């Protein structure tokens, strides 16, 4: 335990060292985060009117970003599946990046939901035993569970693997492989549950549609690996960590297949809405 805390402490120290470009980048991110904190402080005092949302448009960029980032987190599974199920050696070099990205993105998801709350001071109401948790009735309560669960799974897997590497020893399979397989199902579940958040609303015809979860997953499996490829290119150029072409080629193939499925689903939706001019698509015509 003590050794693990030392490990965490050393990671923390390590995050303060780097070259000039690293400091510039981290400084820029800090400035952005501080500006965001300032905006949120205004919002907390003055209410959500600062967002420009109204009774007619009651959800906006916060919820859109949250949904998008859940997709990016779920897409980490596209590095995990080739590495662990198909045992592609070259993916093992980079799979950790996927898991780390999932952690970062889930944290952002949770923050986006928190800043969207009108009463963030009452967040304890969602957490048993302090609050009254409407489970399993509310899909939002399911989302709380799957997102936090996915965060813990990835924290464990990535933490354990990095810890083993730090000690330069081989990871023990039974300590992480079961969690890796669980995380594969869990990754699909986070985006499915997030889609159900919308699909479950019968009063919104545009969302109340069985294709939504499938499209969420298909588009996430295009966008997520796409983002990973960009990240890998930057890592290759800017860091000493070497990433070969093989993982990028694998991701490219995954993107191609997912994009074909996504386009097919999009085509089906467009046909349904536009072939016969129903009122539900009236504004789009």
């Amino acid at each position, binding site marked *: 335990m003590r050794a693990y805390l030392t490990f965490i402490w050393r990671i923390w120290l390590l995050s303060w060292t780097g070259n000039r470009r690293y400091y510039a980048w981290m400084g820029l991110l800090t400035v952005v985060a501080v500006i965001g904190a300032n905006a949120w402080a205004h919002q907390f005092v003055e209410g959500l009117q600062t967002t420009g949302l109204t*009774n007619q448009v009651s959800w906006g960029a916060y919820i859109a970003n949250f949904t998008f980032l859940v997709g990016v987190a779920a897409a980490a599974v596209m590095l995990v599946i080739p590495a662990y199920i198909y045992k592609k050696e070259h993916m093992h070099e980079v799979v950790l990046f996927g898991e780390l990205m999932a952690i970062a993105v889930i944290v952002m998801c949770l923050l986006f939901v928190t800043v969207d709350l009108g009463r963030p001071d009452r967040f304890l109401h969602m957490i048993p035993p302090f609050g009254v*948790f*409407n489970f399993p009735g509310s899909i939002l309560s399911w989302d709380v569970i799957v997102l936090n669960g996915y965060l813990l799974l990835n924290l464990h897997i990535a933490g354990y693997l990095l810890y083993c590497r730090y000690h330069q020893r081989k990871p023990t399979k039974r300590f992480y492989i079961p969690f890796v397989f669980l995380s594969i199902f869990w990754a699909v579940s986070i985006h499915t549950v997030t889609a159900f958040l919308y699909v479950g609303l019968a009063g919104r015809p545009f969302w109340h549609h069985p294709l939504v979860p499938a499209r969420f997953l298909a588009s996430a499996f295009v966008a997520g690996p796409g983002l990973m490829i960009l990240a890998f290119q930057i890592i290759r150029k800017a860091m000493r960590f070497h990433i070969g072409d093989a993982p990028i080629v694998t991701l490219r193939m995954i993107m191609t297949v997912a994009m074909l499925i996504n386009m097919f689903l999009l085509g089906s939706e467009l046909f349904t809405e536009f072939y016969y001019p129903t009122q539900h698509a009236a504004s789009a015509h």
Partner: protein
Amino acid sequence: MNEIPANQQSPRTLEQVYRPLNRRTFLKGGAATVAGMAGLVAALKPLLALEKGDLTLDDLLQKHYRELKPDELQRILKSLADKCEQERGVRPNLRDLKPLDGVEFGYALNLTRCVGCRRCAHACLKENNQSRDRWDDIEMSYIRVLEMNKGAINVETSNHYYAPETVPQKDKYYLPVQCHQCRQSPCTKVCPVQATWQEKDGVVVVDYNWCIGCRYCMAACPYDARRFNYKKPTIEKAAINPNQGYLSNRLRPKGVVEKCTFCLHRTREGKYPACLEVCPTGARVFGNLLDPDSEINYILNNKRVYVLKEEVGTLPRFYYFFDK
């Protein structure tokens, strides 16, 4: 990650990786930390503008309405009344009215008679203490009167911003919409913290002291019946209705959802809702669905009645009917 990857070109010792902490790096790191913290403090400075009483320990620790013991509820009612008096200068008669036995409320609206004058929407504001910047700002009213085109019953082609000189306009008819107090209410189903629920008499209520403001219920409602306090409600002292109920028209805090409660602080005492009393054409009928001799049951049994968006399966307690 089964094996240590081969691509670590130059394995370095831990000491090499963590540059030894010397005076220079310590000062640099310290300066960066101080700058960062100062930035954060400056960024959070607007929080100082929070008004006294906006965040109190009592609020944070308050339990869900349905878990409150009678004495706890009385204490909360008193502190809410005190707060209203302090902040708004009006001492409200704030009570908690329970649903009556043997009563289930129902509402019917005569579309043949409605002329679209919006008096109901204004009366709702006066009765329920909603936020408004001017007397005629009915954005937060629980009633939206939709101007419908003849030949259409679909609300998607309706307009609730209509403003002609006189109503009714030729080739239009008017459809006032408010909370339908659904038997299968999507809003209560989706609330993650059960801050909204159906009472025994069918009224769907919100505990403004429990709502976390996620607005999922607004997304779920097919009737646009819910309003959100995007700011601390603004209301003139003279406009405040002091006859208040905990679950209905008491002054709301910012950041919570509110909605029509069939004026439960009136109807649970045997009065009619404010929107019914003000209607100049007598288009509104309210009563007890469990009483076979009530006017509402006469309407349901004898008129051509329908419900809005029947296909969504909400089973409303709000009905529309035609006279002739």
